[in-house]
């Protein structure tokens, strides 16, 4: 997802990715826990303002970003299971939402059962049923309509694959393979209990149900493509108006019952989101506190961000947290590329990370050096690794002398790789999207590596088609920058995806001698039912990959949030990497 930082933020904001986490570290700003425990007040209008023209999506089967799940899940749509809406580590624990519990696994977590609470209803007063949940799930299979959302159900549900490898079920519109789908999700006679039958053990299946994509959609209200403009509400608010580039207005849902909802607290009478605000105007509103009951949904522009965060009078209107994303630089481990540990290590120690981070906003606001693809905010699956940034030879501004020593070692241990990395006629290849930001950072990268004796050829590729050509580029480049945010609080959505068989393994490590043992352990960890044991396995796997220097560098990103002086109940909802929207209220 993210690629270096500016690109990364934009990508993260506009496309996929989702948050998760557990123990977020509050870097600066308000003590969110105490802010959240102040006595809330009912009434008033909550304003949100943003430069964006619209929400990327409102259709639950299309939504993938943590902020949008947090916002829409707090106000409009309920799910079977939710994260606990509290600050701190507890925020990553699961609580039952529409369901009576967080799920009952059986058959080694290949079967999961949920029962709907009595009284859960849609905005028209009709009860939410098992059939609605099943229908919601079926929409994810209509890949001819929905391509933006998470695709886990396609590989998890016990439905055979078609000859081309895709699911044999094609969704509720084409209905191809409908009988197969009907067997994979079963509803009880009273239409309240739902049973999911999976192909393999998925111990963290219930975490997926925190996604709106795992929630219900009433078939009678499904308008396919246009459902993205007016989803039917099951939460405490419903949509009164949604006009792209203008505003969204949410009003109270008269058919929502507090008795059926243990986690939502709808304080404000209505909620207004103003879209399309000029960035300078948006920042000025925040700086001047000219909308005291308003919340800035974006980050401030860099200069204004520093101005706002350095001014002590704004201390109660800001947060600076680790966000859910890790930026990384992957090494191409395939034969004839960076297939030499000493060379990879030499690059790692030669890198001038300080200058690169400074270029992007500094340690305080951009991010800090990481020691794993798994971020501390993920909770129990993270443990500090050994070596890499904890190695005594590591210097954040680069250590060219030590890098030279490693290169000298590589000259003996893997002469071919050494020759490629240092021979002026050959040299390392680094593909990068052709953007102004990348051109600036490339100068720093080239300078640092040259100081250590490397020869590096930066090749710029058109930024617009860069992502579309990743499959080709990843074979041709030695270094590949990108980023990742876990989908939920389990490294099962990080390590297999980035270093294993998942979507985004750019390390080309599958033919290395170290991979077989690694993937065998990954597959065991994925189905491990003992959560503590599983966490330990992820920690060991992270260490294993970092010891191989599959990643040259990782950076744990930060993000800042700001709001008006009349907003109460603010805290950072760690698993979603955003405000805990449901507890916000307007101070009287």
């Amino acid at each position: 997802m993210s690629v270096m930082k500016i690109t990364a933020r934009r990508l993260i904001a506009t496309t996929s990715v989702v948050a998760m986490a557990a123990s977020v570290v509050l870097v600066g700003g308000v003590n969110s826990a105490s802010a959240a425990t102040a006595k809330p007040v009912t009434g008033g209008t909550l304003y949100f303002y943003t430069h964006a023209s619209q929400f990327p999506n409102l259709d639950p089967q299309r939504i993938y970003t943590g902020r949008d799940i947090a916002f829409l899940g707090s106000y409009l749509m309920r799910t079977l299971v939710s994260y606990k809406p509290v600050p701190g580590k507890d925020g990553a624990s699961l609580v039952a939402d529409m369901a009576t519990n967080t799920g009952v696994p059986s058959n080694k977590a290949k079967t999961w059962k949920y029962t709907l609470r009595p009284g859960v209803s849609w905005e028209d007063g009709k009860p939410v049923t098992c059939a609605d949940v099943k229908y919601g799930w079926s929409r994810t299979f209509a890949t001819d309509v929905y391509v933006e959302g998470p695709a886990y159900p396609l590989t998890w549900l016990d439905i055979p694959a078609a000859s081309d490898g895709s699911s044999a079920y094609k969704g509720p519109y084409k209905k191809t393979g409908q009988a197969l789908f009907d067997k994979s999700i079963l509803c009880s006679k009273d239409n309240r209990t739902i049973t999911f039958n999976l192909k393999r053990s998925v111990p963290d299946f219930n975490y997926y149900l925190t996604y709106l994509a795992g929630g219900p959609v009433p078939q009678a209200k499904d308008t396919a493509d246009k459902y993205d403009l007016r989803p039917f509400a099951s939460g405490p608010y419903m949509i009164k108006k949604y006009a792209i580039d203008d505003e969204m207005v949410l009003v109270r849902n008269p058919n929502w019952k507090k008795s059926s909802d243990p986690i939502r607290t709808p304080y404000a009478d209505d909620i207004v989101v103003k879209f399309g605000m000029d960035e300078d105007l948006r920042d000025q509103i925040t700086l001047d506190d000219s909308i005291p009951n308003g919340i800035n949904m974006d980050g401030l522009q860099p200069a204004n961000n520093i101005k706002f965060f350095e001014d002590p009078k704004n201390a109660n209107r800001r947060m600076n947290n680790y966000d859910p994303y890790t930026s990384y630089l992957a090494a191409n481990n395939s034969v004839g590329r960076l297939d030499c540990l000493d060379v990879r290590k030499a690059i790692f120690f030669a890198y001038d990370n300080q200058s690169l981070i400074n270029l992007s906003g500094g340690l305080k606001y951009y991010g800090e050096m990481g020691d794993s693809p798994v971020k501390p905010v993920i909770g129990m699956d993270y443990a500090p690794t050994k070596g890499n940034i904890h190695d005594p030879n590591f210097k954040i501004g680069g250590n060219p002398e030590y890098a030279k020593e490693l290169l000298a070692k590589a000259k003996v241990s893997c002469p071919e790789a050494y020759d490629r990395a240092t021979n002026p006629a050959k040299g390392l290849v680094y593909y990068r999207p052709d953007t102004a930001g990348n051109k600036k950072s490339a100068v720093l990268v080239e300078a640092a590596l040259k100081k250590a004796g490397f020869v590096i050829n930066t090749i710029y590729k058109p930024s617009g088609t860069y992502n579309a050509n990743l499959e080709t580029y990843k074979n041709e480049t030695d270094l590949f920058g990108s980023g990742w945010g876990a989908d939920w609080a389990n490294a099962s959505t990080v390590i297999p995806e980035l270093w294993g068989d998942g979507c985004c393994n750019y390390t080309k490590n599958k033919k290395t001698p170290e991979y077989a043992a690694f993937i065998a352990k990954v597959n065991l960890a994925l189905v491990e039912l003992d959560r503590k044991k599983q966490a330990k396995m992820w920690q060991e796997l992270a260490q294993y990959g970092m010891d191989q220097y599959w990643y040259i560098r990782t950076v744990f990103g930060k993000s800042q949030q700001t709001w008006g002086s009349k907003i109460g109940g603010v805290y950072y909802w760690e698993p979603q990497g955003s405000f805990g929207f449901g507890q916000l209220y307007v101070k009287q």
Partner: protein
Amino acid sequence: MLKYVSRRILYTTILLLIVSLSIFYIFDLIPMDPARLICSKQCTPALVEANRHRLGLDVSVIEQWWRFIVGLFAGRTFGEDGIGQFCSAPALGYSFPRHECVTTIVANAFPFTLSLAVGAFIMWISVGVSLGVLSARKKGKFADRAASVFVLVGTSLPTFISGILILLFIVLKFNLVNPLELGDWHNPFTEPIGWLNTFFFPCATLALAYAATYTRFTRSNVIETSSEDYIRTARAKGLTERVILRKHTLRAALAPIVTIAGLDFAGLLGGAVITEGIFGLNGLGKLSIKAVTQTYDLPIIVATTLIASTLVLVANLLVDITYAFIDPRVRAE
């Protein structure tokens, strides 16, 4: 005359077809893949292809263009059969990020752009021409020098600076408009005060740059015309300066200004990107810039580009026809 007008309309139509085809080719060359852009992080090549099919980008550029032309006259269904979205003629496309027919989106945006263009036009013509005439009549005096300062400021301040300055240091500083109501639409006939509230400052921003240019232009035209023989004759006949100015000088001096003003106005109808963006006006300019920078919404980009070029071509056509009426020699060519 009819033959001349028919010929001009035919040429304009052909030109529009060429322009529209060029737009499709230009956007095909841009290194951006809308099919990949809206695909999730779990996207596969098969999903990208399915998406490309849904967006109608899996056929040649010429076929895409032909479908567009057909849709203009017959309407068109976008997306998968059965669950596709039908847009009636004239179908400019379907915006998948906005889930709306582009014709509807454009129709909603046009009143903002029209209001801005009309308001700004009235301001810059009245201020620019008046100041230009005043400056010419008071040549070398204080009023002329003051007008020169205005021209200097107006032409040297780009709209993105003057707009931001007006917004932050006048509108917001003195609470002239609630920032949450900035850019709200009000019908000028039923809510004139609300309309003025929304459009006065954006129009003033846009008019500032144009008025400066028109001041200079009017001044030089009036001075030049004033030195013509027939003006001297009028003065010798004993006519008052006021009459000479109104009946003789202005009539000749303003003719070229009217022509240029028409073209400028037509250009503005295509959207004032910066002013609309700063003041939150959901006009064609803002629509197109957001389509480029936020969603890469190809149908909107194509439609707004085409509308802008159509307006300029139609304005040119009208100017040509007007000239033909005024000057019979043009018809004969």
